[in-house]
């Protein structure tokens, strides 16, 4: 997962049709990142930050432009292959942790490994190690409702890293947390990013969080500028 991993975003555009109006959310966004690099995306609400993140994470498709990860263009893949690609290469951390309430913390972390049948034993070991790493080894069998907000987000970080993704995408990961919890989660996130040598993109409103990334860009009305 290290060395030659590269993300290229080239002239990315996204337009939504709202009734008779067309709204251009992204207007020619381009950047490249290599393994171990991190990028913070800043900008006001509605500027297209999350849209950019979801397109890069293959959860949404661009109207035009190109996203290449390790030379592959995932948006050209059919849905099943795209899902498998996302499962192997991309990890997500959302503002709302999106942990499944019916599963334990460990099960939530192992969720990405349940897509297929392979490697589930190894994944289980890694899941436990990651939870140990994020300080939740004592909470393995707990339900998300039994955790604090910070703990839930740390579990979400562990889940995002389970498959050793090339690309770790975080959408306001501290948006719902108090300052102390936010600090803990962000520190953990960047540490793990370094340890895993992944590409990290963080969408945030927080200047403090953004400051931790090597590179920062600001989106205003779909246009990218250096922050």
């Amino acid at each position, binding site marked *: 997962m290290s060395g030659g991993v590269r993300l290229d975003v080239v002239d990315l555009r996204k337009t939504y049709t709202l009734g008779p109006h067309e709204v251009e959310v992204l207007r020619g966004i381009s950047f490249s990142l290599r393994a171990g690099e991190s990028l913070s995306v800043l900008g006001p609400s509605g500027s297209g930050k999350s849209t950019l993140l979801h397109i890069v994470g293959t959860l949404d498709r661009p109207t035009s432009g190109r996203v290449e990860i390790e030379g592959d263009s995932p948006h050209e893949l059919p849905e099943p292959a795209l899902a498998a690609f996302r499962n192997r290469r991309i990890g997500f951390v959302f503002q709302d942790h999106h942990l499944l309430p019916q599963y334990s913390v460990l099960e939530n972390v192992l969720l990405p490994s349940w897509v297929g049948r392979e490697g*589930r034993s190894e994944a289980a070991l890694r899941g436990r190690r990651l939870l140990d790493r994020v300080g939740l080894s004592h909470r393995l069998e707990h*339900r998300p409702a039994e955790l604090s907000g910070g703990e839930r987000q740390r579990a979400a970080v562990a889940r995002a890293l389970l498959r050793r993704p090339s690309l770790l995408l975080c959408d306001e990961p501290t948006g719902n947390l108090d300052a102390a919890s936010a600090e803990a989660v962000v520190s953990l996130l960047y540490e793990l990013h370094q340890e895993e040598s992944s590409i990290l993109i963080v969408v945030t409103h927080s200047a403090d969080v953004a400051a931790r990334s090597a590179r920062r860009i600001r989106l205003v009305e779909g246009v990218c500028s250096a922050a």
Partner: protein
Amino acid sequence: MALGAAVCCAVVTGALVVGDSVRGSLRGLALDRLGRIEQAITAERFMPETAAAALGPGAAPVLLLQGSARVPSRGARASGIVLLGVDGRFDALYPVGSPRPFAAMEAAGRTPFPPLALGAAVAADLSASVGEEVVISFPRPAEAPRDSVMGRRGIDDAAAGMRCVVAAIVPDRGAGRFSLSPHQSAPRNAWLRLGDLQRAAGRSGTANLTLLPQGAMSRDGTATPPLTLDRLALTVRPSGSHVLVEADGFVIDPAMESALREAARAEGAAVQAVQTSVAVALRHGARSVPYSTVTAVDPLDGSVPRLLLEDGTEAPALRDDQIVLGLWAAEDLKARRGDTVEMEFFAVQPDGALITRTAAFAVAGIARAEGLGSDRRLTPDYPGIQEARDIAAWDPPFPIDLGRIRPRDEVYWDLHGAAPKAFVSEAAGRRLWASRYGSVTSLRLAPAAGSGAPALAAALEARLASGPAEPFGVRAIDLRSAALRGAEGATDFGGLFLALSSFLIVSAALLAGLLFRLGVERRAPEIGLLRSLGFRLRQVRARFLAEGAILAAAGAAAGVPAGILYARGLLAGLGTLWKGAVGTSALSLHARPPGLALGAAIACLAVLAAMIGALRRLASRDPASLLSGRTKAELFRAPSRAALWMAAVAGAACAVMAWRGTTAGSASPGLLLAAGACGLASSLALFAAWCAAAGRGRPIAPRGSALPAMAARNAAWNPGRSLLTVSVIASACFILAAVAAGGHAEEDGGRAGGSGGFDWLARSDVPLPADPGTASGRELLGLAGEAAGLLARSEVIALRRVPGDDVSCLNLYRPERPALIGVPASLIERGGFRFHSAAAPVDNPWELLKGSPDPGVIPVIGDQNSVLWILHLGLGRDLAVRDETGRDLRLRFVALLQGSVFQSEVLMSEEKLLEHFPSSAGRSVLLIDPPEGAAEQAALLESALSRTGLDIAGTAETIAAFRAVESTYIRTFQALGGLGLLLGTCGLGVVMARNLLERQGELAAMRACGFPRSALKRLVLAEAGVLLAAGALIGCGAGLAASIPRLAGGLAGVQWAPLAVMVGGVLAAGLAAAAAATSGSLRAPLLETLKSER
């Protein structure tokens, strides 16, 4: 939600309208068949036509006989026909526009044979057309009781025939539907002109039925018309100084005797009973006197003829073993006082055959040939004897050896006619000659001092005319009231369809409640806001309930017309697909406002109850969680102790009831169904406990596919909804499985089955005067050759039947006078047939007919289906009926048959039947077990006894006809249950859709983790599958388990195919609903769900 209320209302209203429609239709049919007829007077003994007609203005005399018909040119036969001899007065009882059978016959003009009008049903059976010749057969009215010594018992004496020409086919309406017994199917009537049928029956100028129109009777409906002596078939006439009372049929039966004695006592008259019979021979040593009449009479103080002895003294009261010989006989026998004389006399065997017996008497004296000693009036005017010029010209009903008649006997006949040659005591007469018809041939009444015979006769006539008529076999039936009571129906179809639709109703109510709950859940923040603003819990609930009530009322309003349409559909089903349940297609829609209002009210209440249940838990959550939109706990809770207790208690109840239901010896379906219901409740409680515990179970394993485990965990996550869904599916499957397993096992034809081991059930319109199961009986019936041989090689049980209302499920009307069957000792001893239950633990429940459960109570047996569903009684319960003399009888069910051929009648011992219905002469039901390979020879017997209208049916087919009704109900139930399941499946779809809506974020996160859409679809389908499979397994398991004892006992068989189709359909529909909900949900854009900025 309004839709749910509408469905609920439509189903309830529809069911009630069906009930109203069946009642309304039956009432319409009943009134149509009666026209303007209000009351009927029936007479066991025929009354003069003129006397009948004088009962009231517009009264119509009718001669009504059971019969059969055949078309000689084609051999077509029809049995079970009611032959009605009528005149224009019958036609006049029906309104203008109604068919007029008599007028139709009159209009036929001159025909080579008497005209006959055939009812449409009979004409269809015979394929007869106007102008065709038809031979009708019917029982020849007996001059003396058929089973008495003086009864004629040859087949030619029992049956009469007549060739007719079909003059008209009478449509099946109005007069065409006339019937004394209520039944929804078209009556099998045929009409003849009154005079023609009277002549053919040898009963000119008489009738046995008088129909009275409205207004002819007193309005209280209880009074019978004044009955003159001729209407009572009595002769009361002064005879010298006394009054002589005789009855048609030559015998005064005990009830009539009792009524006459009471009337005489009231007039201060002394009564002398006279019994005169025929002695085959009087013997003294080697000498004998053939064919003499002997009279049993006791001396009486009063103005009646005296029996004077040779010395001029009056004969003393005789002991039982004493005899007074007439002078003629004493001289003939050379017998003197103190000698022993033997009397050979006839006795009737149980099979109807005559035998002779002998009794010895000591001669107590020799009577002079004067006074009673030469009184010809002591002997009734027996046809074939009294009018004979000499003994050689006798045509008696008993066998006579004319070779034994001597010239001296002819001289006596010439001098004294049928005057008795000997006298015995009244007690001796009763001992020798008494039969169920009685033994008294006449009563002699001595007027009180100061009164004369003419005055006594007049007073007696007046007293009898105003007294009860039933002892004389005359009965007044308020036909109109009986018909309207009967039209209320043996089965409450409204209740039945409510019960059949119960699952549909519950499903609709639950669905409405579920939709309401989901709607309220979406508005949880609103509830939270109201609570946080200070609204009290009660106010919040009231606010939402008011909204729900408005919607429920709107739904109910829409449901009423839908209910009428639903009822129309059900009635169409009852007239076509489910016709087997009602046997008629003449049901029409009768929607009454009270029924519609009740349906709407029930639906509203059901939906409101479901809403209250839905609102109760939600509104009581804390405002903070409601404001945040959280409507349920986000933690698995430990299995509720209450659920576990409920599972344990219901499981124990299930086990106890199953054990009781099995060991009670009856495999009681009700108990077993209750056991199954408890099993269902226990299983559902366990499911609830599993839901609660699922999250505490083992983690999802790291090997194999995780999908099933994920599906199970997800299915258990929302226990309330999951339990509701599983409950709906399980309840439906339970009912369907129980119904599918509630069918009867195939009839095996064995002795312990519903047929009792008899392959044929024969019914004759003319009761057979002798038992065809015995050689002597076959001889009397004139059976010879192949037919006699076939019967000789068969096991035959002949049963007497008292006509009455059909008590089987084939009759929709409420039976008032059930048809009765007398079970002979031979069948009681033989045993057999399958019994549902018995009042006492005996090997052969038939034996219970012999006992007497309580004084004045007659033990009877009925088929469980008829007793339970039509008579609405059960084992040990009493049925009140009246015997033929009007006395009240209590019949107690001491055993219940199961799935037998006897579903139309109630069975009592033949002995008791004859005791209370003594005029029941002959046997009209035969159980026949033919020898191997004789199955095709039924026609042989039918042909040999064609004059009796014998109709042989296979017992298997007879039972199948009864079962067809049950099967139809099962099919109806399955169809309605299927609709309920469909609704339940819709509910499942709604729950799935709602669940998926709530789980958008979860599904989006899973997609973000790399789950392809197909995997998520499989996951959601698997979750639905878990609920469906759990519901189906729990329901079918409990339903089938409830039937295991009956299945193991061979009493039931599972209809696997419809069950599999129904349950398979549910699973498929449920999965389809889940798939549709999933597709919609997965098409939703992920971005909106996952976006951090909202």
